[in-house]
């Protein structure tokens, strides 16, 4: 067990541990010492640690569901600020004028680990009803080097835990292992290379003794990958490219004669999920590069815009499901894959759920990727007439065509270079994570209700330059964009409720037995009824919310925490569609609520 800083801290932690056992019978707290070592067993059983939140998405299912129910439908009106803490990392770098907060706090046995946009990790002692900074680890991220090739903001979505280490990323492409006790960096390694346009914004996923890293940079023409680092040795175990090389299965979905696959995009910057029984890691893959000029890269462009399932030990791709072949819209499938088990008409189904930028929520069989259903979760879809219930592909998809045209009038192409499509290129649903209530079998999606104009600009072989944008056009942002929280019953695939919001949902969701929590970019935090999505509580932080809420318990008391500080792509590229948000200043705050 890491040593406390002083006697009072020790006492607080012992009291906390006892209170934790009392509150949650399922808590694995056989001894304080074992509980503080984040073992493989504890990572597998994270859902049973009711007080804690030890994975980025709470547990390996990525449901972001906490069973804590002290704060519930009946009393949530009494929720108020317990304490706040100002963080750093708001400074700019590269093409960015400021950093932001998109992270999910991790909580283990009364201690929280959060990151700011430049990758500083803060350990906070949560005991005694307040927050006390224990240490801050500043990885000294190279602002100029990384900030110049971060397509969409100075972001870091959080840490992972493994044994006595805190595992974190930096925008400039490093994986760091810091000692939980004092924040000392034990080792680090370069995983991504900003010289190639690669940066890292996602939180690591720890499976067994591996830390899985995803990469951003499709707008710079990277060739995307997932990399597994052995946390015992600090060495790479496998690296799987999301764009297959010549001779590998799937490379024939790049039909050009000039190796477009080498700059084919396929980022992986949202943390995946894991099924231990199948030993499969699930990860969303981003857009092809260049984003809009699909004629530059004829073919389906595997595995862009796909969900992929990989063998956890080897990184070998076991199956894939592609949502938008030969994508001309920037419809990433960079999204978490939610794992849910349901019984429909007596048949038990193991689902993998994905809410795509293209406006559809998908369910596939997570053992083999077989398509089950797709449902539009946005109010307006114009790029396709629908998803085929048999194939799961857009009905206009024609595998014999090298360049897909979908609904041609709204599809950007060299022949039709200026279009308006719904959803716009931000989605649909972007990186902010969904949440799932396993009792209600209801999946909640943070929605960007949008249409957007876009231009196709022809890219020619040889146009790619290291560290320069490689997008083949771009969005033209004028139309107003709103948002919603949309609920889908996963046993039927039908939308059951929608809570509409003035602005797009840019922060993600948390589910508890009776509630759904959400943050709104103009500052409001909402608690919604899990069944009806009726608003039960609201608090305005008066700053931009761009991160997901989470919940934990310490000293026997439940709290809700959320990072507040607008960052990301929105306020640089899309602010004109959300009048009023331009007045929201950059900030960097942690808010914690309790009854």
């Amino acid at each position, binding site marked *: 067990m890491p040593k406390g800083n002083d006697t009072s801290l020790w006492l607080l932690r012992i009291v906390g541990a006892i209170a934790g056992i009392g509150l949650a019978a399922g808590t694995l707290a056989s001894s304080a010492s074992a509980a503080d070592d984040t073992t493989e067993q504890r990572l597998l059983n994270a859902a049973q640690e009711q007080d804690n939140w030890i994975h980025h998405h709470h547990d390996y299912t990525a449901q972001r569901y906490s069973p804590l129910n002290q704060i519930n439908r009946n009393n949530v009106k009494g929720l108020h600020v317990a304490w706040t803490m100002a963080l750093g990392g708001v400074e700019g770098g590269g093409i960015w004028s400021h950093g932001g907060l998109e992270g999910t706090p991790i909580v283990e046995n009364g201690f929280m680990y959060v990151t700011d946009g430049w990758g500083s990790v803060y350990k906070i002692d949560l005991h005694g009803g307040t927050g006390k900074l224990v240490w801050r680890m500043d990885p000294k991220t190279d602002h100029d080097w990384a900030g110049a090739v971060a397509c969409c903001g100075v972001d870091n979505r959080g840490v992972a835990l493994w044994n006595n280490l805190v595992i974190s990323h930096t925008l400039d492409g490093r994986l760091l292992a810091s000692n939980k006790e004092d924040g000392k960096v034990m080792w680090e390694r370069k995983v991504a290379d900003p010289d190639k346009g690669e940066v890292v914004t996602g939180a690591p996923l720890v499976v067994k003794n591996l830390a899985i890293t995803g990469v951003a940079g499709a707008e710079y023409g990277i060739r995307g990958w997932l990399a597994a680092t052995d946390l015992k040795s600090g060495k790479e175990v496998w690296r799987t490219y999301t764009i297959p090389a010549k001779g590998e299965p799937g490379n024939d979905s790049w039909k050009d004669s000039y190796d477009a696959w080498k700059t084919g995009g396929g980022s992986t910057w949202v943390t995946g999920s894991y099924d231990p029984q199948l030993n499969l890691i699930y990860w969303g893959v981003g857009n092809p590069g260049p984003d809009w000029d699909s004629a530059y890269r004829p073919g389906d462009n595997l595995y862009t815009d796909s969900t992929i399932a990989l063998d956890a030990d080897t990184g070998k791709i076991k199956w894939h499901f592609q949502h938008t072949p030969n994508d001309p819209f920037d419809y990433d499938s960079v999204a978490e894959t939610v794992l849910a088990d349901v019984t429909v008409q007596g048949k038990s189904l193991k689902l993998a759920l994905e809410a795509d930028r293209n406006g559809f929520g998908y369910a596939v069989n997570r053992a083999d990727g077989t398509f089950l259903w797709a449902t539009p979760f946005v109010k307006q879809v114009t790029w396709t007439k629908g998803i085929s219930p048999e194939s799961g592909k857009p009905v206009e998809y024609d595998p014999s065509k090298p360049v897909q045209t979908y609904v041609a009038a709204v599809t950007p192409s060299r022949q039709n270079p200026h279009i308006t499509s719904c959803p716009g290129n931000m989605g649909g649903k972007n990186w902010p994570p969904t949440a799932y209530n396993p009792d209600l079998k209801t999946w909640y999606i943070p929605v960007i209700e949008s249409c957007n104009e876009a231009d196709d600009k022809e890219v020619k072989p040889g146009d790619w*330059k290291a560290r320069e*944008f490689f997008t083949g056009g771009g969005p033209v942002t004028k139309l107003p964009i709103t948002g919603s929280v949309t609920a889908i019953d996963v046993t039927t695939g039908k939308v059951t409720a929608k809570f509409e919001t003035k602005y797009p949902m840019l922060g993600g969701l948390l589910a508890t037995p009776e509630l759904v929590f959400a943050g709104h970019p103009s500052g409001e935090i909402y608690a919604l009824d899990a069944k009806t999505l009726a608003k039960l509580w609201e608090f305005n932080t008066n700053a931009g919310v761009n991160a997901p809420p989470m919940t934990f318990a310490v000293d026997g008391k439940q709290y809700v925490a959320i990072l507040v500080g607008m960052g990301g792509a929105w306020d640089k590229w899309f602010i*004109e569609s959300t009048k009023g948000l331009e007045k929201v200043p950059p900030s960097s705050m942690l808010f914690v609520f309790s009854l």
Partner: protein
Amino acid sequence: MILGRSVTKRTFAGRYARAGGVLAIICALCLGLAAELRGTARAQANMGGHQPKSEGQRIYEKANCVGCHKWHGGGGGSYGGAALSLRDTQLNRDQIIEVIHCGRPGTGMPRHDRDAYKDYQCYGGLTAQDFGKDMPKEATNFLRPKEIEIVVDWVIQHLKDKGPPSYADCTDFFGVGARACDIYKNEDAAGSPREPTTVGK
């Protein structure tokens, strides 16, 4: 002449049409970029990683020129469209000064002079009324007229007509040893899966 004051009022579009290749490119690429500088103009004097070498560079960063035109001034395609290349621009000193004062209608280039449409006689005396909703966006950080002259002189001295950016240009901006400059020194980055590029040549 491009954007000359002598041209009659209310003919902005007509002058665009006559402005030649550079402006045509701006129009084509920057349509709808209004979003861009509204957000990025929340400039920080300290961009986080280095100390500006001169007052001109300091203003170039403070006004967040770097957010769209990049450190090298090359601008280029981007997620939100494209920014004019200050390296290739054919605008002269007075014209660049005018664009910074007044912004560019229909593009993401904001106006950096608080009183541009009161006192400055933008584009031959166009007013806010003439533009309607195409009025150039307001920069979050305004510049004083003297600051605009300093930054334009810096652009002319360091960027305009300088050809592709070099390693020396990069270290001049970021300082010797900056990793942001390595690609200009080592074009064939170790371990790169692809061919060397033309950047820096």
